[in-house]
């Protein structure tokens, strides 16, 4: 029988209310019609012990930045398939900065060509995950890089 246990990166089943789970916003800017990948990543992070705020498809940069502010997340992961990442991601980052949200861990994933990695790194994205990524690598990346 499966029982809740302590063997997870998320913490222990203590009775104390003093806990700090990592809060992650997974968001999809732009007009992508499906969000399979984003949901798989959200689920993997959930299973890794994170509290994942998922906002659904067709978010504007302003909506994503506002959600990051209100939810006070530690991590923002953007997913995109449409090819508009160099158009939309800078606007998300700009909108977050405008709101004073400048200390979160940023990563992104989706259909993003290798040659765009440098531009995204410059924007502040610490990692770009492409199709075929092992979800455990994403969980590990979050735990290794989050500022807590």
């Amino acid at each position: 029988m499966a029982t809740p246990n302590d063997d997870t990166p998320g913490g222990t089943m203590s009775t104390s209310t003093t806990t700090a789970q990592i809060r992650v916003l997974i968001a999809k800017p732009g007009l992508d019609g499906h969000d399979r990948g984003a949901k798989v990543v959200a689920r993997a992070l959930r299973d890794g012990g994170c509290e994942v705020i998922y906002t659904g498809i067709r978010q504007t940069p302003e909506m994503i930045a506002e959600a990051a502010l209100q939810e006070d997340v530690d991590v923002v992961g953007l997913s995109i398939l449409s090819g508009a990442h160099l158009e939309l991601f800078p606007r998300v980052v700009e909108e977050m900065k405008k709101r004073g949200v400048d200390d979160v861990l940023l990563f992104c994933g989706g259909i993003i060509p290798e040659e765009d990695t440098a531009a995204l790194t410059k924007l502040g994205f610490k990692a770009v995950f492409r199709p075929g990524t092992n979800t455990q690598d994403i969980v590990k990346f979050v735990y290794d890089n989050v500022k807590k």
Partner: protein
Amino acid sequence: MDDLVQRFLSGERRALARIISRVENGTPEGRDYVRALFPHSGKTHIIGVTGGAGSGKSTLTGALAGEYRKRGKTVGIVAVDPSSPFTKGAILGDRIRMQDLALDPGVYMRSMAGRGALGGLAPSIADVVAVMDAFGFDYVLIETIGAGQDEVEIAGTAMTTILVNNPGTGDDIQALKAGIIEIADILVVNKADHPAADILVSQLQALLALSPAGSRRPKILKTTATKGEGLEALADAIAEHYEYLDESGQLAKHREEDARHQVLSITRQIVLERIRAATPDEELEALVKRVAARELDPHSAAEDLAASVLI
């Protein structure tokens, strides 16, 4: 800390968000924020929205906030979703149903994980609601985790509790049972465009007809939250309920009940933490093993543990 409190008091939403995180994590620093801000709370109408998973709580909460915005009021929303008992992770998806409010400067929406608390709430919900109250919202809406038959704790924190029901989900025996239905101040039949909506309304009416004479009977209202229908009447019924609470003296009583509950539950927590801190892990493990092996009963084991601190 003072700087963040100053920014909070001047209405900065980022400061509100930051403070909620600290309060939610239950750290000593978080408790200091509650101490600093508690005197500013006590002005907000706190409204609970509860009901089964998929009953439309999030959509209804969003639509109700929209109705308040039309009336020029500001709204804070706390929406709770369940944590995994295994990994402590959670998917918090209530924002998806509240997209219309995403950029409204008069609305602040916060997702919270249940973190193992009972009653469809989160362990620090009362503190987080007090902080949102102190921020000065006209209304704070608390949306619970999908509730079943017995998650009645919301009525302790919320002044007005709305129970969201759906047509086609059970016969009138369900409505007759004790539990969650008894804490509702307003009964909403959501998804009222469903063919069986009127049957549910009449079942609920028949049930309420059996209430003791002289007791206040909750209003039954039909809404179709996805289309924004019935929200005006709901907001009016909530206002009417608040007026009743205020005039009948129930509001003052509610505040006292809530205060008593909070003081006792925090005390319980402090005592437990002291006992845990005073007990070496090996000692606890040894007791646990003896209980599991049926050499000791759990009551005696707990008394052993408590004795180390309390005597």
